[in-house]
């Protein structure tokens, strides 16, 4: 239930930004969720709606999924991450700490574990709208 911990972080960060910007209320919260972490969107959304602070009470929450793209630093090959071929233990480990992808994944062209997570790593707050 990693999703709860991340939802809690989103809630806390949104309130922090709202307070910093002097918002009375947050009306819209746009969140980007990377594919590498394999977040269960339903659980994440449920957790977020459960945890939402008073400032976020009426906020419209938009979740946008982003495919994870990896790029080999050794040969430049780019590929999309797919958890389908991974065994459950590996997929779960990457779910908790996405960087252990470097433990289990290799470039399909040259076999190097030295790749860059170009996009789709984790959870980001893209933008917040609110009223002052």
């Amino acid at each position, binding site marked *: 239930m*990693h999703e709860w911990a991340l939802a809690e972080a989103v809630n806390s*960060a*949104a309130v922090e930004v709202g307070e910093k910007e002097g918002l009375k209320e947050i009306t819209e919260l746009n969140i980007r969720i990377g594919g590498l972490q394999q977040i269960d969107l339903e659980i994440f959304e449920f957790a977020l709606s459960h945890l939402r602070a008073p400032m976020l009470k009426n906020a419209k929450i938009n979740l946008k999924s982003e495919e994870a793209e990896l790029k080999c630093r050794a040969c430049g090959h780019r590929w999309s991450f797919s958890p389908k071929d991974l065994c459950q233990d590996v997929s779960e480990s990457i779910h908790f700490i996405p960087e252990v992808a470097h433990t289990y994944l290799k470039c399909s062209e040259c076999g190097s574990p030295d790749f860059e997570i170009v996009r789709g790593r984790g959870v980001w707050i893209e933008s917040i709208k609110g009223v002052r």
Partner: protein
Amino acid sequence: MVDPRLSIVNKRLAKVEKIIAVSSGKGGVGKSLLASTLALILSRRGQRVGLLDLDFTSPSTHVILNIEGLRPEEKEGIIPPRAHRMKYMSIIYYSGDEPTPLRGEDMSNAIIELFAITRWGALDFLVIDMPPGIGDATLDMIRLIEKIDFLIVTTPSKLAFETVNKLMRLLKDLRMPVIGIIENMKMEESNFIREKAGEHNIPYLGEIRFDRQLEASIGDVDKLLRTEFAQNLREIVSNRLRPRPRGRQTR
């Protein structure tokens, strides 16, 4: 774009009284053994202790403590399992024995993730076994962890101290709290490290004699706690790192 994890890190540590980053500029000075033994000594004294192995590319405290087959509980984040009466967290739960080569940004991301999702609960001490040097892990502890205290480990060697000196200067320039410096693997009488610590106004906490029996105690916690190494460290803890009664400010 906001990384939401950053706003939760210190909330996750809110009930931790004291966070000790066992650090050194140099590898091979005994940080992991010292961090593990320090955590054991504190927990045997009835303190609530957590040990975090932050040396993601070369974790070793699980070998020192003979920890195998544990896995964190998943409950609205992750709860570190208990081992030897303390809460123990390491990347090995997820990477196993496989090599985990990480570049700087990945290292930093993994550190933030671990702090953002780990629920330590109430602790008197969280001991962190830091990777050597003044790279990502050190910079992230300085940037992220409000309650951090550094405990510096060196050997009597001028080579070790050359890099430890840089760590001390960095921490001093950034006005980070430093508990003091421990001189490990001492073989001959010398005031070199004590004098250098004095020049930096950093407390010299004491020395640990080179212990030939130490290697044979790796993986056996009771044996480790009977070594001269542990005895020397216990004296330092008693004299200089005395645990405070619960509920009082430690800094």
